């Protein structure tokens, strides 16, 4: 009897969690990213179209074990990336909706794996900067992050969900660290 009670108490939380839908946390700007943008003293840009290219490594919603992670922004992680960049441009004082410099992007890879020991996120996006109809920057940037995971989904899934914005911060950090990008938005 005791064994049964113990087994039920162990299994119940996993059953409760199965096949749930989770929403990624709202993006919180990264101070280092804001500083990188601020270093481009005369930069001003507007945000153009940000799309998400559906692929094996970029399915929507994003599977986190038995859970599915959705974007809190326009039901798209392309829009999530646009929102992230908008927030950092605003905080750096570099967003200018009237600017002739436009940043566009396509999310190519958006994969989160929730292992028993380690979790990992792989993101990549194709960024384009246009100025008055001319392409000034055209590159693909990638980011890979890793964290300690857990066997219990009730621990591992929220952890993976909370790690997602940090992977987006790293992806944007890779872009802002590129002198060619900073030159293109000036």
């Amino acid at each position, binding site marked *: 009897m005791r064994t049964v009670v113990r087994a039920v108490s162990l299994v119940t939380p996993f059953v409760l969690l199965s096949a749930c839908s989770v929403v990624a946390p709202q993006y919180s700007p990264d101070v280092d990213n804001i500083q990188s943008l601020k270093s481009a003293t005369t930069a001003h840009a507007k945000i153009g179209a940000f799309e998400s290219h559906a692929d094996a490594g970029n399915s929507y919603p994003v599977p986190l074990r038995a859970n599915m992670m959705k974007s809190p922004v326009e039901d798209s992680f392309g829009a999530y990336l646009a929102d992230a960049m908008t927030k950092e441009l605003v905080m750096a004082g570099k967003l200018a909706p009237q600017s002739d410099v436009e940043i566009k992007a396509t999310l190519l890879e958006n994969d989160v794996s929730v292992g028993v020991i380690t979790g990992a996120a792989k993101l990549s996006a194709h960024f384009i900067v246009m100025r008055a109809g001319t392409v000034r920057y055209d590159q693909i940037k990638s980011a890979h992050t890793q964290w300690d995971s857990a066997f219990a989904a009730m621990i591992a899934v929220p952890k993976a969900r*909370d790690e997602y914005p940090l992977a987006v911060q790293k992806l944007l950090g890779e872009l802002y660290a590129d002198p060619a990008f900073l030159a293109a938005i000036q």
Partner: protein
Amino acid sequence: MALIRMIAAASVVAALSGCAHEISLTGDASKIPTLSTKPLDKTVGLVITDDQLASEVITPGGGGDKVSYHPYHDLELPIYVSLGHVFKNVTKLKSVPDAAMIQAKHLDYVIAPTIKTTSSSPSLVTWPPTDFSVTLACSVADPSGQTVIAEDVTGTGHAEFSQFKRNFSLAGQLATADAVSKLQSALANAPELQK
């Protein structure tokens, strides 16, 4: 009801696995209220080291569970934003600057915060803390290293189940917002910084 069941289930798993529940104290930094006064025409360096950013703190939640968070990582943005309301230019630094860096970055002041936190909950069923406090101690030093002013503020946050059911970190985020709001007011009103 489903939410209570989920939170209770998470508590069972966390207790069994010996883990603390992760929360974030950051909140929406764009909602930190601006000051009625114009920013002082000064450049300040905000020192937060990589070791501080990586440091994790574990404090009590409800139902005998614990919560874990990274205070310096989580408060980095709110502090940076609030200092931006007080001073015209804020530069984040990963170490205490030497004379050469102070000169290169034209720093008028160097600010090194230390953060202390507490959390608690009387709940026997749910793990998110209902009460949270964030104490920010900030010393403001001039380029010679002399302390110009030292401010010590404490922000508090309280969130009941009906409020935190959509955001388990709410009490901590309210405490953070309260602490940085008090910090920016204290610095903006400090006569020592008006010179």
